[in-house]
């Protein structure tokens, strides 16, 4: 429960920072909640990633226009996949973390767009979508290492997760 509350608070803080950042940058093409779900997955494993993705996706859904549940599902899948990828990827350096953040955001945003389209939402022209995906990935890549930096000590304090077990395996 404590972890859920911490994640919820972190999600809300990131949402507020995203809003404030959008005022400075004239719009923010990257969703920090999606990147956080992927980072939690990569650090904590697939099971926690899926749960964190669901929770952060619900927050994102409640902030965005309807329908509720769309981002929840997509972020859960992304959290799960990040957990799987995180067990065999070396995500120790800032560059690999940035690349991971950028790629996972592009995949997640494309999935959200595709799911929205399937649910009957109008999409911008294809060129605009591509530009949005690239811009989103760049922004996500910029703040992914910061989230890795913040999530690791937090999870170690709240209970050792997959990341620490992997470190132990490597060291052992």
């Amino acid at each position, binding site marked *: 429960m404590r972890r859920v509350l911490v994640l919820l608070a972190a999600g*809300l*803080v990131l*949402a*507020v*920072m*995203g*809003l*404030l950042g*959008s*005022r400075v940058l004239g*719009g*923010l*093409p*990257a*969703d920090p909640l999606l990147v956080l779900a992927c980072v939690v997955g990569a650090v904590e*494993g*697939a*099971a*926690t*990633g*899926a*749960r964190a*993705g*669901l929770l952060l*996706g*619900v*927050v994102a859904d*409640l*902030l*965005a*226009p*309807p*329908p*509720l*549940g*769309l981002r*929840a*599902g997509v972020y*859960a*899948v992304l959290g*799960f996949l990040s*957990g*799987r990828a995180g*067990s065999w990827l070396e995500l120790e350096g800032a560059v690999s973390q940035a690349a991971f953040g950028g790629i996972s955001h592009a995949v997640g*945003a494309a999935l*959200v*767009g595709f799911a929205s389209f399937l649910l009957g*939402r*109008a*999409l*911008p*022209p294809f060129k*605009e*979508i591509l530009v*949005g*995906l690239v*811009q*989103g990935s760049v922004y996500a890549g910029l703040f992914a290492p910061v989230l890795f930096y913040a999530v690791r000590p937090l999870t170690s304090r709240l209970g050792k997760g*997959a990341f620490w*077990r992997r470190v132990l395996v490597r060291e052992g």
Partner: protein
Amino acid sequence: MPGPDWGAWAVKERGRGRVALASALAVALLLLNLEYRSGGDTAARLRGELGSVVAAMVGVAERVASPVVGAVSRVAQAFSAARENARLRGELRELEGKVLGVQDLERENQRLRQLLEMRGRVQVRTIGARVLGLLPSGFEWVALADAGSRDGVQTEAAVIGPEGLVGKVISVGPSSSRVRLVIDPESTVSVRDARSGELGLARGMGKEGLTVEFVSGKADVLPGDLLVTTGYEGSPFPGGIPVATVESVGRGSSLGRTARARPVAELSRLDVVVVVLGGPR
């Protein structure tokens, strides 16, 4: 003493992952079902509450950030006060900051004057609101504003900026509302060419602006023409509000004529807006 069995742990972890994903997807589907079954009422209520929480948090963050920035700069100044040179530099920075602050206030003043002028054009009741930010997305253009149902804001209400139409309210919370901008692909606005009177329908195209479909293939539309809202009966938008300026005009056909237009409102730096409450002033 034997170490932990990491192989068994990995198999167990994989199983836990699959179960967690299946449960998460089930919950997501349940939420989607709830949204469509309840006509969005429950979700809209939750959305409104969370919007108000986030709006309050943005307010607190703004209030907290400015004293923190001030305190940090004061501490820095205290450290450098020992040296005359640093003090002078600090004073210079402060003066520069004041000049920037004055410029910022002047800009805000000008935009508020423009907004008042725009408000004067609308013969219905309105309320002022502040835009808290744009929701992060590459496909949707939705803003969060700090006026809600407590202020009389309703869904479908028109939102107008100092330069012209910004969008319309799509959901309302107690003290916040979400505004779909005119450039959002889901947005459509009935427009009239202010010069020729030709009628058309403007659709959002994201950052590319708007595409306007005119009914007649021989529609008299020229680049630079101002497009304003038609204000037909039942429309959420009052008539005569500037929407966009025509950038280019396509060839006409039997199906009509299409033009590209750029919104007049500065959507990338929205700060103050008015929300139309309806009813005469």
